[in-house]
């Protein structure tokens, strides 16, 4: 079995499992009247998910390139930074501080310029601060959005 086919099979199995769970919950939960529409949708959902799974099992699902190792290695640091920012940073450090740090870290990780150059670091810090200043003016001053305050800001 090729890597692409295995990936298609895994994803279609997850979708089928989701559809079956939706169907099971729709047909077992009460009050029945509240689940009338979910029942209708879950039937179509399950039928399509089974069709998709069978196609993947037979090796007929070929649309999409799947996820290769290089892509995963490239994006992993960025996604981890985003996850830390959203799940921990924003609430604990404060929205603006966490956002500035995330902007700078994401920019630095993916910037092809050398990480040893002081000039490049100054440029990164300046761009991050300038962007966050615009965000602050837009959201805090103009739209008056109240954001969580943390240890920093």
């Amino acid at each position, binding site marked *: 079995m090729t890597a692409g086919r295995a990936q298609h099979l895994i994803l279609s199995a997850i979708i089928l499992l989701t559809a079956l769970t939706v169907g099971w919950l729709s047909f077992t939960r009460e009050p029945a009247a509240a689940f009338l529409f979910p029942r209708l949708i879950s039937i179509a959902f399950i039928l399509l998910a089974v069709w*998709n799974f069978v196609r993947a099992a037979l090796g007929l699902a070929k649309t999409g390139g799947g996820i290769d190792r290089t892509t995963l290695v490239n994006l992993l640091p960025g996604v981890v930074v985003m996850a830390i920012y959203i799940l921990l940073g924003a609430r604990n450090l404060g929205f603006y501080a966490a956002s500035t740090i995330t902007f700078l870290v994401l920019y630095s990780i993916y910037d092809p310029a050398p990480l040893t150059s002081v000039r490049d670091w100054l440029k990164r810090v300046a761009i991050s601060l300038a962007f966050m200043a615009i965000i602050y003016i837009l959201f805090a001053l103009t739209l008056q959005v109240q954001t969580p305050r943390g240890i920093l800001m």
Partner: protein
Amino acid sequence: MEFLAYFGGVFEPVAFMLLLCGTIGGLILGATPGLSPTMAVALLIPFTFHLTPVHGLILLGAAYTSTVAGGAVSAILLKIPGAPANIATALDGHEMARQGNGARALHLSFLSSGAGGIIGVLLLIFLTPLLAKWALAFGPSHLFWLAILGVTIIGSLDSKSFVKGLLSGCLGLWLAMIGYDDIQGAQRFIFHSSLTGGINIVAALIGLFAIPQVINMLAKGRKETNLITLAVNHQSLAASFREIGSNPRALSIGTIIGSIVGLIPGVGGQIAGLLAYDQAQKFSPHKDKFGTGHPEGVIAAESANNAMVGPSLVPLLTLSIPGSPTAAVLLGGLLIHGIFPGSDLFDRHPDVIWTFINSMLVGQILMVVFGIYTAVWAARIAKAPVPVMAAAITVLAVFGSYSVSQSMGNVYVMFVLGIGMWVLERFGFSAAPLVLGLILGPIAEANFIQGSMIATAQGTQWSYFLGGPLNLLLIFLVLASIGYSFRANMLDRRRRSASTDDRSDAT
């Protein structure tokens, strides 16, 4: 001619300023490769919360119009279409720029966009009230089938695989059911406290369109991008006007095809541009010049993709079926401001809707003026480094989804949906049907419940939904959209396997 009475609203200071900001911002966003019009409109929705419905819609409408046109700037100067709608523009536009005719190509692109766009908005003005009157005949069962039709059309036409398109639509319908049921107050599919209030549409839109784009940018890794902007020499605007006037064939082919494609739910600008380019080539006496920097190619493609914008709102405003994925996001924007599309839209909110439509007409003119004079600047901004773009979109997405109801729950939902959508996209799924399922789900359910109650009272459960000419027509259209897509998929697969066989024979 009711729309003329509401023209004044467009020129009120705040409204006009928003129209200007939306147009200029849209041109820059559109020119930026990787920022699609759909994503631009989704990211802008949170900024409209603090505006009145009419002002919010003016901003979104201006952004929709000008992002589609702005995509031509990077297509011509960088050979990277700013949006899928500008793929056909790059074919001749970039060649013209390489030959030192960049300014001419930009002028032709914006002038033909403006001409196509104005005709498209005029169609919106004159067709929408007619269709809205016809939509008065629609009862709950018809509205239920219409919502299902919206999901199946986009599901089957906007995806590479129609099974996956329809599955995306089902996923969207399911996500729409999460939260408390409106009638019984029962909890449905609440797996986490963030889902108690259901999936917020704006947070979902931002997650589904912006986060996959960011991840795609990150997936390229630390790569040096050497984008070279071609020099733009001075070109007389009067000469460009004359050139547009001397190419009525390309302009009319583009405008007609764009308008028709826009009226068909779910098709979108990419197909309009490519189809118009193809037809302009077929009808041109200079067929062999297409692809070598021929102005007709730019005129046909650009007039088509902007002529599509106005008509794509006709089925949206009257029947709640968007004509393009961006129109689907705009539908979310309408609902958030309490504007429900339908037959009585023009009776309930004439000021909001007519001012919005008029602003799109004025926006076309502003787009031409600012497009011509800011194109070169937009191209420079479009060269912003990919890591800066990725970081900026991430922060904007978090702030945008948080500001919906000042809740971290929406940010979590946005992030999880975004990651999930990126994975699904890697396997041929598309965000547009999922979004449509999410937006049309509550409309479909409300009409299904209402219809069921009427049917129970009449003692005609099945015939209420399955009988009558309009129900049958809508059911036929649902099945036809699925059948058409199934056939197209089969033909495509056969063509691909035939070309593989040819290649293996050759080796």
